């Protein structure tokens, strides 16, 4: 049993490829752009374009596609549920009914909506995963901080905000590792997580989540002490070991993303939505 195996969000896969060496700001802006585009896409053709782009990035960054997508596995049941809800509950006037059962009826509009929304979630997740897989935590922090710099002027504690976000991201994996150990420790005392009725299964969560929360608080406290012991006092007056530098590659990547966005926007505007 290994819980951490399928967790890809927040994991950095070290490498030396074109994608890895891009300035983190380029990657963050590109990711934000892709996310925005994803929110407006309503045609299958645009999703095909996205898929091609993502596979191309994975190949350039030498990330095994199987690994990039395995993080989606735990989300599949929720996605399926969402898809079913859309299928039966979403409808537009004039939509044709595909089939009906008891009081439920599925329309083609619902089917399209279900497909589009599921794909949207899948792609949102994959795009963000690619960002963290190819960007180390340190450069991610530096990049975000630098991008949020203008907000400092209006008194926003950007450095602290970014630090909080990054720590949260890091803790996904740490907590999963702890969860793995706790589950094993309780299984060793005879908890059968896959047996029993609903009430018993719910009761089985206590021996797992109580130690998890207690340990999480303990870890957080230790982290605070460790940071303070090294004189962390927020963003003020903090200098950087590595300064960020935009190069020609970043310019090229930027241009490429622009081109891609124009193409997608063109598709969004010209192709009538499937619904």
């Amino acid at each position, binding site marked *: *049993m*290994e819980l*951490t*195996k399928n967790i890809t969000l927040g994991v950095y*896969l070290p490498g030396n490829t074109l994608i890895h060496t891009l300035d983190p700001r380029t990657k963050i802006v590109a990711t934000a752009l892709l996310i925005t585009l994803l929110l407006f896409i309503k045609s299958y053709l645009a999703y095909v374009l996205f898929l091609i782009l993502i596979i191309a990035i994975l190949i350039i960054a030498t*990330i*095994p596609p*199987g*690994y990039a997508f*395995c993080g989606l596995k735990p989300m599949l049941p929720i996605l399926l549920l969402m898809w079913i809800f859309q299928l039966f509950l979403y409808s537009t006037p004039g939509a044709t009914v595909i089939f009906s059962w008891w009081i439920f009826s599925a329309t083609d509009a619902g089917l399209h909506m279900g497909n589009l929304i599921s794909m949207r979630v899948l792609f949102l997740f994959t795009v963000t995963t690619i960002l963290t897989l190819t960007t180390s935590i340190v450069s991610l922090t530096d990049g975000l901080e630098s991008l949020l710099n203008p907000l400092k002027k209006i008194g926003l504690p950007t450095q602290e905000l970014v630090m909080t976000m990054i720590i949260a991201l890091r803790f996904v994996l740490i907590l999963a590792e*702890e969860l793995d*150990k*706790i589950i*094993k*420790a*309780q*299984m*060793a*005392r*005879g*908890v*059968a997580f896959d*047996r029993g009725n609903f009430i018993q299964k719910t009761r089985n969560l*206590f*021996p797992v989540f*109580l*130690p998890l929360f*207690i*340990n999480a608080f*303990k870890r957080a406290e230790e982290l605070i002490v460790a940071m303070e012991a090294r004189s962390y006092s927020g963003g003020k007056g903090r200098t950087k070991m590595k300064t960020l530098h935009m190069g020609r590659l970043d310019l090229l990547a930027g241009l490429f993303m622009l081109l891609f966005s124009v193409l997608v926007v063109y598709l969004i505007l010209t192709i009538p939505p499937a619904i």
Partner: protein
Amino acid sequence: MPIEVNNLSYSYKKGTPFEKQVLSNINLKINDGEFVGIIGPTQAGKTTLAQHFNALLVPDQGRVIVNGVDLAEKKADLVKLRHNVGYVFQNPDYQLFEPTVGEDIAFGPRNQNLPPKEIENRVLEAMAQVGLDYDTFNKRDIFALSGGQKRRAAIAGVLACKPQIMILDDVTAGLDPGGRKEIINVIKKLHHEQEITTIYISNSMDEIAALAERIIVLNQGQVLFDDQTGEVFLHARKLIDIGLELPEVMNITTRLIEAGFNLPGAILSIDQAVHAIAASLQKGQVDA
């Protein structure tokens, strides 16, 4: 309940870019009533190996057979197996969760669906075995315990399941010398009085030398030595090479041997050393 391991291999994070082979082609057999020490440098695969003994991990290749039952078989009753093969984890914080010590120790027997009276008896017995006074600690808040007391409560929680085999995974790590001694005495006593098969994982040569009858040395996922305690320590040089330390006494006796004393190669206690050195001096066998 003998444990038999045949050609066991296991990789961590299999199928991802982080895949790493932790165990390769392990073969061993642990018989009833033995006290086996598993030692090796960090990342040698000690915990991974031990977690196969109660099916917390399932082998990629090879088989683990406990009491004649292949653990990979569908009909193997793993819940029952885990009550018979107790596992105490390194960090008690992963295990303790009930508000009081008594309730937490009762957690295992409750999972066995025993009658309340029997659970009560088990808790009483387990607390006595690890030397926690029932009246003082039964209702004690679990977070009010010291490090050593927490370890003992965790051991009691596993003992209350009445295991025939007990795996102790680095249970003295991070304790002060007093706490270590207490835990070691508890383990020693359990093995002698209850004849529980004990598998003791540790980094500390001193502890292993004092406790184990047989030692399995793991290095990079393979069994380097598997022999009686005295025999294993004859390979002093090799043990140091893979990053282990010799027991404190042997640091001195190995030097004396190098200086020309005629001493046996493996000396595990101070008493033994005193006698051997005295004998060697009397015979006047010192060359130097």
